[in-house]
């Protein structure tokens, strides 16, 4: 504080003054410095006066109290002077508001039917939209729960000429990339992982863990997921070249095996015969690259570990999302540098993909489609609401006009209408949330296996906030639209129309509403019909095998107990014999890759025909499977030429292969493939073709042609196989159970991982189109119903408006059929325009649906025709009652009542 001007030169400030100045410093900022200066100046003068008059002590006491009181009043202004006026204002406002709410409720209750329909319509729209939004938000928008997920990238090695030809990384890459991190490369850190399976033993029966993720020591620090309990794995957990003695388990395993006991931390598990102790639990919802991981184990990947060459998946963290391309370039350089060491990398380059896209990319389009569909539905609901409110506004126009004529200001009428709309919106919103809760359950149940991040799909605060905002916005906007419309009319014409004159403006507006509704319903119905037809087309596709009676079981042989190839081959031979001995099993076989199985081993290998250089620039690629005898019989895959793989194919016998029809056509166009030879694995293996089998749709009915070849399991032996058994009783579940029992009989300590009917794989393969078809059908049905209600309401209103005209026509000799024609003509006109608009929307929106369609064109005439017929039927049905009412009008009565 600056030195005050014009005071007597005080030798030194008194204690009271110091206190006063201290409090002054604490004053709020709105008390200006000038004012504080004045206060201090006044204080000094009064103190000087008091001292001069010999009452310094009393002054000190009073001034101390005064200083405290002044400070308090600076913060808590005493408004007593202004209070009366303010109090009056507030009571006035409060009474208006509560009055408006009371009046609104009374009005809404006076027309319960109308109110219920309006609230339910809104609830339908809000409920559906909220349920879909919960998915939209949970999968696409909700933060991932990782540290800066936008800076994470999934890195792949793909061939520069054949982009679908991808490879995993080498352990030696990891070392090179770690060296690159920092140093201006744009890379901040890298993490790698690969899949494995593990057998959990001890405490109860042995449990085959489907997915064990083997990660490097940096994995958890690079991704940064939050553990549920305990911690993630770190670099300190791994010793040179070894796997960690600690592990992190998944929430699912934690709940199923350990009863969600938090004391699981520190417990020892026997995994594949090795003791590891649990240090953490990862939640199901943790957005790690793969869902459903049972256990994470860290490993120190050393460059000399060639067993893992090309098997590692890589995740990179870049400095910032913008430095993805820098990082891509430096990684490409690192990959090129490693080329000299490994010729297999020739022609491959590194590509960066956003981690978020990787998690949800496959369903993004589907969710958007559902979101667009449900938005159309909401729009229909809103238009219906507007139509309903319009009908009320018409009947209320007289009341409004009267109120205005009596001097009510527009703002007053407006606030009453606003309040009514708000109350209705909230009613609809509450009902909508209840509906959304039900729909949400249904959706999550339907889409559990379909959607990533399904654990993040919940009805929580952001979603409920969205529901509230949607219902209020929809209710206000569409509920008030008609009322706002009356505001544009002058009082005189309002009064006139209220007194019964014709209302062409209303009619036009309602007609517009009907057209919009029909158009939206058409768009949704076309989408639904297309999806349904696509689903039918998928079902009609011959998959190339018959899985109807087949039960399957996955068996991953314990690598220690079954180390040698002969042991593995013998296991599956014995299992097959055990099963074939049963009367209820017709055929049994095993394959390294079963069609439509999402967790199968499925990769293609380059091959060379006789006379081609197997190490040269090989362009031929075919998918490789190893199968046991009986596999083709069990799956009912037809033999076209030659013979199948059977018991005569021994490990030390001639190396043979069975190829599929596409392979035969691509490799030996026109020539007989049986007896020909080809080589793969870089020429290290040459096989002679002994037979040709039919093609199967490997990845699902929508899959295209694939060249495949099959080698005898005894000649190329895998430990992880899927056994298929055909039931002679038409009971695939019991066939699957029989495999499991036979496996236990053969070796009780070698568990069967999972067994189920083949048909469940087939239905899973069409889960995504089925989900969309189901959703869109539900939307379309509701949309058609709402549109029908809209048409009904609009026509009924139209007939009511034209009572006089119709009566006059009847009086002048028009027959009932003429009147019917008049009304139906009206409804036909509206629906025709709506249909046209709807088809135009379909044309624009076809691109969104196209990726989900199979075997049906988005502009498919049959689908469009079917929808057109449905719309005509619906509109005509909705017009029946109003038309009948019009035809029954008695001219004498009408004219008398007017």
């Amino acid at each position, binding site marked *: 504080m600056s030195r005050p001007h*014009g005071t007597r030169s005080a030798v030194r400030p008194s204690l009271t003054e110091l206190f006063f100045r201290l409090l002054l410093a604490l004053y709020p900022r709105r*008390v200006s410095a000038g004012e504080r200066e004045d*206060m201090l*100046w006044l204080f000094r003068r009064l103190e000087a006066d008091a001292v001069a008059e010999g009452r310094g002590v009393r002054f000190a006491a009073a001034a101390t109290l*005064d200083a405290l009181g002044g400070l308090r009043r600076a913060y808590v202004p005493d408004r007593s002077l202004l209070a*009366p006026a303010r109090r009056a204002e507030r009571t006035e406002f409060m009474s208006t508001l509560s009055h408006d709410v009371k009046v609104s409720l009374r009005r809404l209750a006076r027309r319960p039917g109308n109110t219920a329909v309006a609230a339910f319509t809104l609830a339908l729209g809000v409920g559906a939209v909220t349920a879909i939004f919960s998915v939209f938000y949970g999968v696409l928008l909700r933060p991932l729960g990782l540290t800066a997920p936008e800076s994470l990238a999934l890195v792949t090695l793909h061939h520069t000429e054949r982009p679908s030809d991808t490879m995993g990384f080498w352990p030696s890459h990891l070392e090179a990339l770690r060296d690159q991190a920092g140093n201006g490369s744009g890379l901040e850190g890298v993490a790698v992982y690969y899949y494995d399976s593990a057998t959990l033993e001890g405490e109860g029966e042995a449990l085959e863990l489907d997915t064990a993720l083997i990660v490097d020591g940096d994995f958890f620090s690079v991704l940064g997921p939050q553990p549920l309990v305990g911690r993630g794995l770190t670099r300190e957990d791994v010793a040179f070249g070894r796997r960690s003695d600690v592990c992190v388990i998944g929430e699912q395993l934690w709940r199923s095996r350990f009863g969600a006991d938090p004391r699981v931390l520190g417990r020892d598990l026997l995994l594949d015969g090795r003791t590891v102790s649990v240090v953490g639990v990862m939640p199901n919802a943790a957005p790690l690259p793969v869902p459903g991981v049972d256990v994470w184990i860290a490993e120190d990947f050393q460059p000399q570990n060639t067993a893992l060459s090309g098997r590692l998946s890589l995740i990179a963290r870049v400095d910032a999302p913008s430095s993805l391309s820098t990082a891509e370039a430096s990684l490409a350089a690192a990959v090129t540098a490693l080329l000299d060491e490994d010729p297999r990398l020739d022609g491959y380059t590194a590509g960066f993909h956003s981690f978020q896209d990787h998690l949800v990319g496959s369903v993004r389009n589907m969710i958007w489609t559902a979101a667009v569909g449900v938005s159309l539905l909401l729009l229909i609901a809103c238009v219906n609401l507007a139509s309903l409110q319009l009908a009320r506004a018409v009947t209320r126009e007289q009341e409004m006009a009267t109120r205005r004529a009596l001097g009510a200001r527009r703002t007053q009428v407006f606030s009453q209408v606003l309040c009514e709309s708000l109350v209705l919106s909230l009613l609809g919103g509450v009902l909508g949330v209840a509906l959304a809760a039900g729909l949400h359950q249904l959706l999550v149940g339907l889409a559990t296996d379909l959607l990533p991040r399904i654990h993040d799909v919940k009805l929580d605060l952001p979603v409920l906030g969205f529901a509230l905002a949607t219902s209020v916005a929809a209710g206000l906007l569409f509920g008030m639209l008609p009322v706002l419309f009356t505001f544009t009319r002058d009082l005189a014409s309002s009064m006139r129309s209220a007194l019964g004159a014709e209302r062409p403006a209303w009619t036009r507006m309602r007609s517009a509403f009907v057209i919009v509704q029909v158009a939206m319903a058409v768009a949704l119905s076309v989408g639904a019909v297309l999806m349904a037809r696509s689903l039918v087309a998928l079902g009609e596709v011959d998959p190339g095998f018959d899985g109807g009676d087949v039960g399957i079981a996955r068996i991953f042989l314990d690598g220690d107990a079954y180390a040698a190839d002969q042991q593995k081959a013998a296991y599956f031979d014995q299992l097959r014999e055990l099963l074939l001995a049963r009367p209820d099993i017709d055929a049994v076989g095993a394959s390294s890759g079963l069609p439509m199985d999402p967790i199968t081993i499925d990769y293609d290998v380059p091959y060379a025909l006789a006379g081609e250089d197997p190490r040269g620039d090989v362009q031929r690629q075919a998918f490789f499977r190893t199968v046991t005898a009986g596999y083709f019989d069990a799956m009912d895959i037809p033999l076209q030429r030659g013979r199948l793989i059977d018991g005569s194919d021994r490990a030390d016998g001639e190396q043979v292969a069975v190829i599929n029809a596409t392979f035969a056509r691509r490799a030996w166009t026109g020539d007989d493939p049986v007896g020909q030879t080809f080589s793969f694995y870089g020429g290290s293996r040459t096989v002679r073709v002994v037979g040709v089998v039919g093609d199967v749709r490997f990845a699902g009915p929508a899959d295209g042609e694939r060249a495949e070849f099959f080698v005898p399991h005894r000649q190329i032996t895998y430990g992880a196989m899927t056994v298929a058994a055909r039931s002679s009783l038409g009971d695939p579940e019991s066939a699957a159970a029989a495999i499991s029992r036979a496996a236990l009989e053969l070796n009780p300590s070698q568990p069967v991982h999972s067994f189920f009917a083949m048909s469940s794989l087939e239905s899973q393969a069409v889960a995504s189109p089925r989900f969309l078809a189901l959703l869109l059908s539900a939307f379309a049905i509701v949309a058609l119903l709402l549109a029908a209600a809209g048409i009904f309401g609009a026509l009924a209103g139209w007939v009511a408006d034209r009572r006089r005209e119709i009566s006059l026509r009847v009086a002048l000799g028009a027959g009932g059929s003429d009147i019917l024609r008049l009304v139906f003509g009206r409804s036909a006109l509206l629906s025709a325009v709506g249909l046209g608009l709807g088809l135009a929307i379909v044309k624009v929106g076809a691109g969104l649906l196209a990726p989900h369609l199979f075997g049906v064109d988005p502009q498919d005439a049959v689908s469009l025709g079917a929808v057109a017929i449905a719309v005509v039927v619906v509109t005509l049905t909705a017009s029946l009652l109003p038309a009948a009412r019009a035809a029954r009008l008695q001219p004498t009565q009408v004219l008398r009542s007017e």
Partner: protein
Amino acid sequence: MAQPLQLFMLEISIIKVMTRDALKPADFHILLALTGGPLHGYGLVQRMEKESEGRVRLLPGNLYAMLRRLEEGELVAESEAPDDATDRRRRYYRLTEAGREALSAETGRLERLLGTIREADWARGGRQR
């Protein structure tokens, strides 16, 4: 029709409330002191002390709090220093039109009150006007 009537009723109620609620004595004294022209803080204190025969003696903390409140209520306003001012650096306060009205309303109220008291004949010792 309804609207002007409502507004009128509102005004009546506000007037009623205002006449029912008296001005606080300190506020009254500040307003009264300012009738003679703009004053700064020290001037105000001296004037009020004189006018109240030494019974009203305000100190800076509360005085300025009251001035702020009266300023917000637009009963007083900050003012230019008068020509004969000795301390041009200080803030001067003057009475606003609303302040003058409030003062006369309060004076009237006190007068009516006094009248009532005199009629009641139990306050004979009251000062003559």
